[in-house]
């Protein structure tokens, strides 16, 4: 018997696991017919999940947390039983701004600290000369993009809400907005950085992986009540997506994956602008030693929904004033990510799954073997560029330390 599941996705490279699950037969092998529906906004994804047009969706990692904290229009509870990879974003700025940054301070694309220093000097010069504030675009307030951009700015001595301005724009319009001078830079998922570079609108100045190594980005979002009523189906789906992630992570499959994603009903962009994020060549020469760091769909527990990731996003939602910090809110945020479901789904498959639900973020400076359900599992590096450490057991202290 085949079970039909309707899944929403946005045309982004990190929808790869869902697309390959359908196109390479991993879903079918688990008895699931995956109907993939391309969406134009995250608001549509949220609405269609809420009314049940979608059973599952590609979603921004903070979206289920925001939904459960009552920060979105619907009272629908969403959970993330799986992550859809690590990394995959970058910050692109206009040619004019990159020239000015380099003039102020030399830096490489994998050097978030250097790029931050250069931008801070440009911002201070601009303030001294009374120039208009720089504008940066992100796709959604509750997105990894918004929070990693803000983290990077904050740690570089730039106040995101007063020294510059952050505006919301759809990913597909970012490159045009940059080219027309409407914005000065943007933080977005691939392929929209590569599209901006290919169109000549700007240059990549920093990557998500250089701001926070092995950091969370998209998740699989499902309604909590749907998950409870369809746990068997959800388990089968997670197994299918795990196998798909494994396939996506194989370097020998990258060209085929890029070709698949480039189809008009998926990303509709040339595979030549999609491939660099998959094979790491987006990092240029600097990235050859660390090419799997830019976007990682499988290795290093890339699909495990760490509750420490949920809590970090929560800490940033508190930091930037989206929600008040209470023990209840923190618990709600933590429980939005469901490693227990992930673990049950993969039990008996021999796949190594982390034994813990949370980890200290920023503790690993290099790839390290850790305890897992079976075999060894390699994690990290997972450091923040400024050397700070996030210990989910010391959430209050972390939130306090980030107060202005």
């Amino acid at each position, binding site marked *: 018997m085949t079970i039909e599941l309707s899944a929403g996705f946005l045309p982004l490279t990190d929808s790869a696991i869902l697309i390959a699950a359908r196109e390479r037969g991993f879903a079918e092998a688990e008895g699931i017919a995956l109907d993939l529906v391309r969406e*134009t*906004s*995250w*608001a*549509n994804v949220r*609405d*269609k999940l*809420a*009314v*049940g*047009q979608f059973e599952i969706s590609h979603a921004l990692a903070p979206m289920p947390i925001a939904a459960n904290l009552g920060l*979105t*229009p*619907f*009272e629908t509870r969403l959970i993330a039983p799986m992550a859809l990879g690590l990394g995959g974003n970058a910050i692109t700025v206009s040619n004019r701004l990159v020239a000015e940054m380099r003039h102020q301070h030399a830096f490489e694309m994998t050097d978030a600290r250097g790029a931050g220093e250069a931008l801070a000097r440009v911002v201070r010069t601009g303030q001294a000369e009374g120039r208009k504030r720089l504008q940066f675009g992100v*796709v*959604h*307030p509750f997105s990894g993009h918004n929070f990693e951009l803000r983290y990077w700015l904050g740690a570089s001595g730039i106040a995101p809400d007063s020294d510059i301005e952050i*505006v*919301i*724009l*759809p990913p*597909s*319009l970012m490159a045009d907005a940059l080219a027309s001078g409407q914005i000065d830079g943007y933080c977005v998922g691939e392929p929209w950085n590569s599209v901006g570079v290919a169109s000549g609108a700007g240059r990549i100045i920093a990557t998500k992986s250089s701001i926070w190594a092995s950091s969370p980005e998209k998740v699989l979002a499902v309604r909590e009540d749907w998950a409870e009523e369809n746990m068997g189906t959800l388990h089968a789906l997670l197994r299918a997506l795990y196998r798909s992630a494994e396939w996506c992570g194989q370097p020998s499959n990258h060209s085929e994956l890029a070709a698949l994603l480039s189809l008009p009903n998926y990303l509709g962009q040339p595979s030549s602008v999609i491939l660099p994020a998959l094979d790491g060549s987006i990092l240029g020469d600097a990235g050859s030693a660390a090419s799997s760091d830019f976007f990682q769909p499988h290795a290093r527990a890339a699909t495990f929904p760490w509750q420490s990731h949920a809590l970090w996003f929560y800490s940033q939602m508190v930091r930037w004033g989206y929600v008040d910090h209470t023990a209840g809110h923190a618990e709600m945020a933590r429980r939005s990510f469901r490693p227990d479901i992930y673990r049950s789904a993969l039990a008996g498959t021999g796949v190594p799954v982390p034994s813990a639900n949370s980890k200290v973020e920023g503790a690993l400076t290099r790839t390290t073997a850790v305890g897992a359900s079976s075999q060894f599992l390699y994690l990290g590096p997972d450091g923040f560029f400024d050397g700070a450490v996030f210990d989910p057991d010391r959430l209050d202290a972390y939130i306090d330390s980030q107060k202005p």
Partner: protein
Amino acid sequence: MNEPLPSVLIIDENATRASIIEAGLSAAGHTRVTVINEMHGIAAKIALHAPDVIVIDLENPNRDMLESIFQLSRAVKRPIAMFVDRSDKEAMQSAIDAGVSAYVVDGLRQERVKSILDMAISRFNAFSRLERELEEARGALEERKVIDQAKGLIMKSRGVDEATAYKLLRKAAMNGNRKIADVAESLVMSARLLGDGDE
């Protein structure tokens, strides 16, 4: 006596569809209806018109931007609640099926919004139906053209008149259990491939 009907802002990059909704609302007695087809500077436009209800199509990629404008109430003086009626799942469902969403200024009574949303839903559905019909009409026209071309080819190569050419075409279609237009299309295509279809 009656309080004035709520003011409505329609955001739709499809100008035809927007004007269809506008016409419907005017006919229902709404005097304060504004249509915006262009997203540029949307925050300022919303602040200027201060609408009670905002109707937007779901294909518009700028919904996330619009919602963030509502969150930053600096741009919009009055708080805007999000979707029409969170408790009325059926209304939400039919709006989403029709491809439309609405945002309402906080505190506006639901029954005053319902008729606006119902109008938007029915006009969106009517528009989709029209588009489908237009698509079919266009398809029919294409079929007509290709059948004419095929008839011309048969007339030329067999030296027969138009009626006979059509009969031959119909016979081939019946024998192959295919549509006449499909047979005509393959004929025109193969003629083109063989270099004989130039007109």
